[in-house]
């Protein structure tokens, strides 16, 4: 009993210390998305190339929704991954050209290549707010019903694709079978 009385506080503080220690290494910059398992918000916007698109124009299969901008350097870093994915036909990528100017976006696509099925033009960031976007780049995984299933904030390179997206996509496919 006496020993317990001595060790209980010690154990308590070791446990508390452990929790706080772990807390030091949590990534507080990546916010959890509020839209997971929710339908993609309604939109009716123009694309960078000038067509009108709404939710009805979404791919109707599992696809990526990538938030990008011509001002965004990390977007250039992840760009080769999206080029590969679209060239190899692995998954459709819909872009959201977030808080950008149309002519700059067009320039960027013609200089670097266009991996997107189309890019929704969100010039004033209103659609971004509905999605809970807080800065480019962000990439959402959307299922065939138009429901958002996963969000990755910041660069999506080959490593992230392999480690985060492939398992998530495999899970979605298994689910729908």
């Amino acid at each position: 009993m006496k020993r317990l009385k001595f060790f209980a506080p010690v154990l308590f503080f070791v446990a508390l210390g452990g929790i706080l220690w772990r807390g030091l290494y949590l990534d507080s910059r990546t916010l959890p998305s509020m839209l997971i398992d929710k339908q993609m918000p309604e939109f009716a916007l123009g694309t960078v190339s000038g067509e009108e698109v709404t939710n009805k124009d979404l791919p109707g299969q599992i696809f990526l929704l990538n938030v990008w901008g011509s001002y965004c350097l990390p977007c250039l870093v992840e760009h080769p991954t999206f080029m590969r994915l679209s060239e190899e036909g692995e998954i459709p990528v819909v872009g959201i050209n977030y808080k950008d100017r149309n002519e700059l976006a067009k320039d960027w696509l013609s200089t670097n290549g266009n991996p997107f099925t189309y890019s929704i033009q969100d010039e004033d960031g209103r659609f971004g707010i509905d999605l809970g976007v807080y800065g480019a780049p962000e990439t959402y995984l959307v299922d065939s019903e138009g429901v958002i299933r996963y969000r990755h904030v910041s660069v999506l390179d080959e490593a992230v694709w392999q480690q985060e997206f492939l398992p998530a996509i495999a899970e979605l496919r298994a689910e729908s079978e």
Partner: protein
Amino acid sequence: MNSRQLHTFFLMLISIFLLVIQSSTFAQVDTFEFENNEQQSRFRQLSDELRCPMCQNTNLSGSTGGVAEDLRREIHRMILEGMSNEEIEQFMFERYGDFIFYRPRLRAETVLLWFGPIIFLILGGFVAYGIFRRANLIAKTAVVLNDEQEAKLNELVGK
């Protein structure tokens, strides 16, 4: 220090002071127009109490971040549309979650955040009570010498 040096010294002191003042009152100046003062003060209150999701430790009113600018514009729009503070906060919560609030809502996920400090205070109180009680007990049962023992003790320590 001659009077000239003293003069420069005071000038420097005053400039530093002004710099400090300047940075503490720093806020983004938007050219939003409102129909009345009540709307304007609600706007100020909301953008002071909501946190910028991109820059993390700044409120919306103090942030130059792109998304903070957009969110201030949305708050302005919603106030003019006649939405209440609660409705505006709900709008923000649905998109950015608890993070957007400096004062998170009381929910299952935030219970520990709200009541953790009180729980720790109560635990600490129990521990302190235990320690004091024991100290008291020791003081009460302390051995008291009678005169004879006292004399012997004095003799032993050579007084």
